[in-house]
């Protein structure tokens, strides 16, 4: 019996309810670091709202647990697997690769991390050719860069790869003529986009 069969909807329901109850208690304790009292003389303490909101959350999770014990909720009677094995692989790989992506962003910077993320993800899940994946994985970060850094002027994290971008910034904000910048955009945006478009049509 595989692990995905062991985790039934029933088990997931009660496990999640207990975890949420514990989280609610933790929130209550955390809220109590501030004053949680409130009466007519004093203003509302900073911890008052979070404390009673998390108390409410705790009551709701206890009700969910009671409904589970009394078998009143549909989940409490459901012995089917919470997730089937094929879908589990999809979800697990996706979540792990996203976590690795965000870890890598802090170190490598977003643009290079994206190349690796896209290359891995497409190679793993799609049946596209290496040529397609390479073009796709390189074009997407370039488009992201131009969109955020050039159009929106929002810098994205670059980690250790930051020095590599200095020449690009010099170019972007330097005194180059409009025509030079346009040629640059055509080379970096229009051409790759066209390439991706063509490859989606002709390369599998």
């Amino acid at each position, binding site marked *: 019996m595989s692990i995905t069969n062991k985790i039934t*909807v029933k088990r*997931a*329901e009660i496990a*999640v309810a207990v975890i949420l109850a514990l989280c609610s208690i933790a*929130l209550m304790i*955390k*809220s109590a670091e*501030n004053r949680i009292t*409130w*009466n*007519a*003389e004093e*203003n*509302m*303490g*900073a*911890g008052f*709202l*979070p404390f009673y*909101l*998390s108390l*409410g*959350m705790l009551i*709701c*999770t206890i009700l*969910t647990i009671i*409904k589970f014990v009394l078998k009143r*909720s*549909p*989940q409490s009677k459901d012995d089917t697997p919470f997730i089937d094995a*094929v*879908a589990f692989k*999809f*979800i697990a790989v*996706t*979540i792990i690769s*996203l*976590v690795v*992506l*965000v870890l890598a*962003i802090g170190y490598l910077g*977003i643009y290079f991390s994206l190349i690796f*993320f896209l290359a891995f*993800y*497409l190679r793993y*899940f*799609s049946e*596209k050719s290496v040529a397609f994946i390479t073009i*796709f994985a390189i074009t*997407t970060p370039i488009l*992201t860069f131009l*969109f*955020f850094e050039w*159009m*929106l*002027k*929002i*810098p*994205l*994290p670059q980690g250790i790869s930051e020095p590599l971008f200095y020449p690009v910034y010099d170019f972007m904000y330097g005194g180059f003529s409009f025509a030079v910048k346009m040629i640059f955009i055509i080379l970096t945006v229009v051409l790759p986009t066209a390439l991706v478009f063509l490859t989606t049509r002709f390369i599998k």
Partner: protein
Amino acid sequence: METIGFLLDGIFTSLQWFNLALLIFGCLIGLFVGAMPGLGSVNGVAILIPITFIIPPTAAIIFLAAVYYGAMYGGAISSVMLGIPGASTAVATVFDGRPLAVKGEAMTALTAAAVGSFVGGTVSVILFTLFAPPLAEVALRFNAPETFALMVMAFATFVGLGGDDVPKTIFSILIGLALSTIGLDLITGKPRLIFFNIPGFLHGINFLVLAIGIYGIGEMLWTLEETKGKVQMSKLSVNMKEVGRAFGALKKTIMAMNIGSFLGFFVGILPAAGATPASLMSYGITKQLSKNSKEFGSGVPAGVVAPECANNSASTGSMLPMLTLGIPGSPTTAILLGGMILWGLTPGPLLFTQEPEFVWGLIGSLYIANFFTLVLNIALIPAFLMVLRIPFAILAPVIFVLCVTGGYAPTQSLHDVWLMLLFGFAGYILRKLDYPVAPAVLSIVLGPLAEKALRQSLILSDGSMGIFFDISEKPIAAVIMYIAIVLLIMPAFGPLYRRFFKKKQTA
């Protein structure tokens, strides 16, 4: 008369080239987002909001409203062609749209959907124009107690009318509110709930982090599970000659259009409802009232028109309380409302007097967007069919890239990206166990506003909660509060009622 002047100004605002370009672009994105299975208006708006920070608020709202609008049209495309609703708002469209497509009349279904959407959109925009100014005028007299009561009612509608498990719904509302209290307390200035002393929590949790997490990452995980990375489109021929024939078939759907447009609008106004229940209700009622109700489900155009009319109408309807009262009518408008706060506007009736260009620009743009989306929708059907062939395994990473960059951009901190991943994963698990997620998004947006209104009210009343229940002093607040209480206890009477009714039947 004054309204017509404002409306014309608004239409001219939305026809300025920059706004018009964004509007058409928004409609296109909306159609695309709506057509993709797994993505709906709320996902599109949540993922795209970070990129609207650099454009003026009027242009931003016109763009996002067009996305919202386009998604309502686009949802029908995959409902008909794939038999999978493109968005939850188009679930009811599958019932008759899919059988029509299987019969080889896909074009009839798509045209009926587009025209239905257009009619619903137009009727609702006219209703909107008529209702908004007087409602805003009434709302101008609202103070903190009335505002707080309204927000309580918004939360209560989820419990009373949401139809989900009650403890789970209340949990979702409370966790959203609790998350919104993280950060500095505005009144005492004390830091609250700074977990593990991570400085990232000091600026609070931006609603966008939760919205992108749940509607971007969480939704993608959900769709990956459903589709296993593959979406197969059945082959269907697209014949433009059919468009003409389809228009002919629409004569019989006038009743469906009426029901969809009016019902959709009023259901859309309710905070918990939004476009999904509106379209389902509209389908059900049209079916019941129709002379040939038995044919519903086997592919009748009226069965496509009714839900499509209703979801467009409801999407406009849900903007009415957002603009006039500052209370969103649907998850998508909750995110738009959060966006308005980020753009530096104060949602609520004052917008009508302080930012007429914004309000009327939005209303005007709805008229224009409605027209453009109809034209684009019908003209680009072949293009959307191509889009639907994009494998999900390629689309998903692109959406993830948008989520990660969108989660980072507003505050420029990786802390928010981590939170977004966490919320996405938690949202996915909770949704699988039937915890409704929309109330959490609504309450994280409304949380800070509700807290401010509550504390101001309590200062007014010297700390007495009585201010919300005293009919003689604050009649409006009290009435709204009592309605909220009725809504809150309503689900408790459901089982009693059913038990009583059953006994009567057996007796």
